[in-house]
């Protein structure tokens, strides 16, 4: 399997506080990876580094008395950033990486179709993009993407008039128009109700499976990770503490990740008969 995302020795400090600590990982084509961990564990920070929305610590910066090795993040064989410097062509590379945000980040005042067609910005001539004058072929690509996420009937509506779940599906359509081979989703359902959450995650995983896309989703809810992802990477205080198939997630590990009390919050109960499996308690509590 070919490597799609590779991260070497990524460290990041925010104003001297460590956010990520020497993280290295590789993700292969077609994988669906869940990134889990408590708030502040570094999930978002990690994803934002992959998309080149944040830069790592500068190389050679002292941390704890020893020089850090050079941080390097590359996606699809292209360097996104190295040693705290974004690659010169990072804007071109970003086009191949779709990013889904917790707050959707659509242009509220524009129509749904217009928002989705913006995914083509990187491949249409600059002046066309600037004038918001996209060729008909691109608009059709956008309509098709909307159809795939089940939002084509809203094409003419202003993005701000949609519900959160609908906006998130529009954001997925925008990433589809981009033709992104990698989808990074940063807490895509954290501000959605359970029904919309399932719809969004279902859409996201379905389209990416159809297109053989590689997906990394950061999630608060372990339950969703188990349901939609095949591999789980767990972060705690900026370090990877677990990386493996979803089935290997043990209660002990979750306990350590979130603290014992929070297991209930995550809608998980320990099954006495099978100590190594986790069962979901009622659906409603699975969302905080």
């Amino acid at each position, binding site marked *: 399997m070919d490597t799609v995302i590779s991260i070497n020795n990524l460290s990041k400090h925010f104003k001297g506080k460590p956010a990520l600590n020497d993280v290295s990982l590789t993700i292969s084509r077609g994988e669906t990876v869940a990134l889990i961990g408590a708030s502040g564990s570094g999930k978002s920070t990690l994803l934002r580094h992959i998309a080149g929305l944040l830069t790592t610590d500068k190389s050679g910066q002292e941390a704890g008395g020893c020089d850090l090795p050079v941080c390097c993040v590359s996606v699809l064989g292209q360097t996104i950033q190295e040693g705290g410097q974004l690659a010169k062509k990072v*804007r071109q590379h970003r086009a191949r990486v779709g990013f889904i945000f917790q707050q959707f980040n659509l242009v509220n005042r524009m129509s749904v179709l217009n928002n989705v067609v913006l995914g083509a910005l990187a491949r249409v001539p600059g002046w066309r993009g600037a004038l918001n004058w996209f060729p008909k072929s691109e608009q059709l690509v956008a309509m098709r993407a909307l159809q795939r996420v089940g939002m084509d009937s809203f094409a003419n509506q202003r993005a701000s008039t949609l519900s959160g779940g609908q906006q998130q599906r529009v954001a997925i359509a925008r990433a589809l128009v981009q033709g992104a081979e990698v989808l990074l989703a940063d807490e895509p359902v954290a501000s959605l109700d359970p029904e919309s959450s399932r719809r969004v995650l279902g859409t996201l995983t379905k389209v990416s499976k159809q297109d053989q896309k590689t997906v990394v989703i950061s999630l608060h809810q372990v339950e969703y990770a188990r349901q939609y992802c095949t591999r789980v990477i767990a972060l705690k205080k900026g370090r990877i503490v677990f990386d493996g198939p979803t089935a290997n997630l043990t209660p002990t590990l979750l306990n350590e990740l979130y603290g014992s009390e929070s297991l209930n919050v995550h809608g998980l109960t320990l099954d006495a008969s099978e100590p190594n499996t986790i069962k979901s308690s009622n659906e409603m509590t699975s969302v905080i």
Partner: protein
Amino acid sequence: MQNAGDSHPAVALPKRDTKRSLMHAFGWGLFLALLGLSWEGAEMNPGVLVSDASNMLKFASDFFPLDFHEWDFYLAEMVITLQIAVWGTVLSIVAAIPFGILSSENIVPWWVYQPVRRLMDAARAINEMVFAMLFVVVVGLGPFAGVLALFVHTTGILAKLFSEAVEAIEPGPVEGIRSTGASAIHEVIFGVIPQVLPHWISFSLYRFESNVRSATVIGLVGAGGIGVVLWESIRAFSFPQAGAIMVIIILSVTLIDLLSQWLRKRVI
């Protein structure tokens, strides 16, 4: 909350922050000292208002009855004044968009926004009257000098207001556009401008109102419009005419204010 039961520990108000109260008192002291010092310099003398009241009354009575004989001429000049304001404002909006973006901290690095801001400061610091006098020398007497004066001064003001709106935007939508691989220009067009547009329109309409007022004044230095006529009649001590002109100015400015307020409400 219900009555706090015995199980609750006693609560106490947080301690007063002495440092903060001292700073507060110091701030007020400074402000009062400033007022006192300025009294001398401004030669404040409210007593005159009472002792010379009869003078003022006599002066005011000179304006009446108002002389509206040449009302059509006044109205034509008032229209020219409005036209000066329209062009001055539109040109300044066009210039203020790039200058506003280039003086926003969250869009460009300091070595861009610092010089651009200083340039805008200069445009703002000098009153439109002064600019009008300078432009009268350059392009001759007449409305065009007025347009240029308003253009330069208003660009300075709008660029500042525009950039303040840009600095208050949500970074999210900009990142949304950035994540598609778009260029920096596209980020501004789709990430920034849709967010600030209502504010920008509101600021521009407000500046148009102000420019209508300013345009009546810059006529005093020969930059065209109703101001010229007003200045001529005051210099000729034709107060009844001057009064009539002022009434026309007040009515027009009020009308424009109402109109632009109505427009602004519709945009936001």
